[in-house]
């Protein structure tokens, strides 16, 4: 397999709504930003040099278009080249990075565009005169339509079921421990100019915010967002030929789809896809599940809901099962902690533009180990980072990406 590097990163601001851009215009913006970034690294390339695209777009109902990728393909000038769409729920971004990695690693392309976009807030609920219930309904059609959708299942009630089961088993995470994730990620977002929800808040603010789905409160949940994110991936020969200054190497990719029926799982308090995806990615990167916390500098996690970030600390091997809540109480995942998690603000701080999110997280983690994360830069010593994506009914899909910089290599 070819070695694969990220040589360009483009992320648009995450916003509640872009009235001035369609999804394909947003996708164009991220592509242009990624090309500009690659050129800043010395690549001197244009869109015509890109040989293929892998598109990450979750939900047709958001875009009001059932094959949105082909319209982006036209708008970004990638005609007569291969393009493939990935749609794996909240994990769409991470999975798209994995498939773009495969496109280059396999030798099919030397230069590949990994492009995610989502524009959800054109959905509109006429009865309440607000956006969110209709956005949630568009998402709820991802639930099993025969047995689960008719019960009023949606993203928050799906995740909260697993978090509640985890609490029943381990007494962790508590509501206060979950609130700490919200405080951390809203706070980290203050130093990210692209974030939608920067906020300095307290645990009390989270506890007092309106109840959504017991025990998740408003501030435990990410907001749906509109944005696009793009990465340009190159093989080693191309990196040398283009004389790219700071390539970020993808050293591991892992993905797994666990049973989408929570009721079929041996333990309902597990997001099994996390565990399997992490183990595959770490092994490929030559890292250890049991020592991973000591082997990486930073993790961009998929914190769609605060409690799920806590469980992810455990399932990604940062701390033993049942100790995620204690770890955040001790400051472990804080921006100055032993392993900063979501220094960009994550989904709770940045917003969740589903197809773009995992690509943004991967790009943010890459920027960290490139030393280009700006005001939310964390200390880099080992030169390695993890990006995490999870989603779908029962959080069935997960993808994990491991990256390293030139020094770590």
């Amino acid at each position: 397999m070819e070695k694969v590097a990220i040589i360009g990163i483009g992320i648009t601001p995450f916003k509640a709504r872009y009235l001035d851009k369609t999804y394909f215009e947003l996708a164009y913006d991220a592509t242009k930003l990624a090309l500009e970034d690659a050129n800043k690294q010395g690549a001197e390339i244009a869109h015509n040099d890109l040989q293929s695209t892998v598109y990450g777009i979750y939900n047709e109902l958001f875009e009001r278009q059932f094959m949105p990728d082909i319209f982006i393909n036209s708008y970004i000038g990638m005609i007569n080249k291969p393009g493939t769409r990935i749609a794996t729920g909240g994990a769409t971004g991470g999975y798209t990075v994995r498939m773009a990695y495969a496109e280059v690693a396999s030798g099919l392309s030397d230069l590949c565009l990994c492009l995610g976009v989502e524009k959800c807030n054109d959905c509109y609920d006429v009865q309440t005169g607000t956006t969110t219930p209709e956005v949630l309904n568009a998402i709820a059609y991802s639930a099993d339509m025969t047995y689960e959708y008719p019960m009023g299942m949606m993203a928050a009630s799906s995740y909260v079921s697993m978090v509640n089961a985890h609490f029943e088993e381990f007494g962790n995470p508590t509501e206060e421990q979950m609130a700490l994730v919200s405080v951390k990620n809203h706070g980290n977002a203050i130093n990210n100019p692209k974030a939608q929800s920067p906020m300095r808040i307290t645990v009390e603010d989270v506890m007092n915010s309106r109840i959504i789905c017991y025990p998740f409160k408003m501030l435990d949940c990410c907001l749906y967002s509109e944005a696009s994110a793009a990465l340009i991936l190159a093989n080693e020969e191309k990196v040398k030929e283009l004389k790219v200054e700071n390539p970020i190497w993808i050293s591991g990719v892992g993905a797994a789809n666990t049973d989408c029926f929570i009721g079929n799982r041996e333990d309902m308090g597990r997001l099994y896809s996390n565990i399997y995806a992490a183990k595959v990615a770490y092994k490929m990167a030559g890292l250890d599940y049991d020592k991973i916390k000591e082997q990486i500098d930073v993790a961009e996690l998929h914190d769609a809901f605060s409690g799920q970030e806590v469980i992810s600390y455990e399932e990604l091997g940062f701390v033993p099962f049942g100790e995620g809540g204690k770890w955040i109480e001790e400051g472990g995942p804080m921006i100055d902690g032993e392993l900063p998690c979501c220094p960009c603000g994550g989904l709770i701080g940045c917003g969740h533009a589903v197809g773009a999110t995992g690509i943004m997280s991967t790009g943010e983690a890459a920027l960290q180990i490139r030393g280009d994360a700006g005001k939310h830069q964390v200390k880099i010593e080992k030169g390695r980072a993890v990006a995490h994506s999870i989603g779908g009914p029962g959080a069935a899909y997960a993808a994990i990406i491991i990256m390293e910089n030139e020094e770590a290599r």
Partner: protein
Amino acid sequence: MEFQAHQIKDIIKINYRYTMGGQSKFFIELMNNKKLLGTKCTKCGKTWMPPRINCSECYEPAEWIEMKQTGTIDISTIVWYTTSAFIKAIPYAIGFIRLDGADTSMLQGIFSESLIPSKVKKGKKVRAVFQKEREGKMTDFFFVPEDEYESWIIKSEYEGGSE
């Protein structure tokens, strides 16, 4: 000049006559006889509820069996904010119910006189209550705490299951 956005009203709507395929018997028995049917793998004996006519673990057929209408809450939540399709129903409780004898648990609505977390907690015993007007859909039934069963089945729109 300041940017002026143009928006249009639109809706996507598709009509279906969706077949339940091999699962049809579950919905027919629910509608006509207030029975809850699961399936049992002919090889490993695993009981699937919701039913599947093939065992996903052994790749062998699973046979229909009638399930008990009592079970236990495995996990639940109370929903206070939701999708446009359900927002008129809030607050409502849903949970994963393991019917007695089943190896899996199914998502269902849990109705209670007092919708508080302790009433719909893990480990609570529940029993199925049926709509009098049934259409062969999951909404034809729901679960109530076992000690509230009698008070639910005397309501005009509901009734108890088959014994």
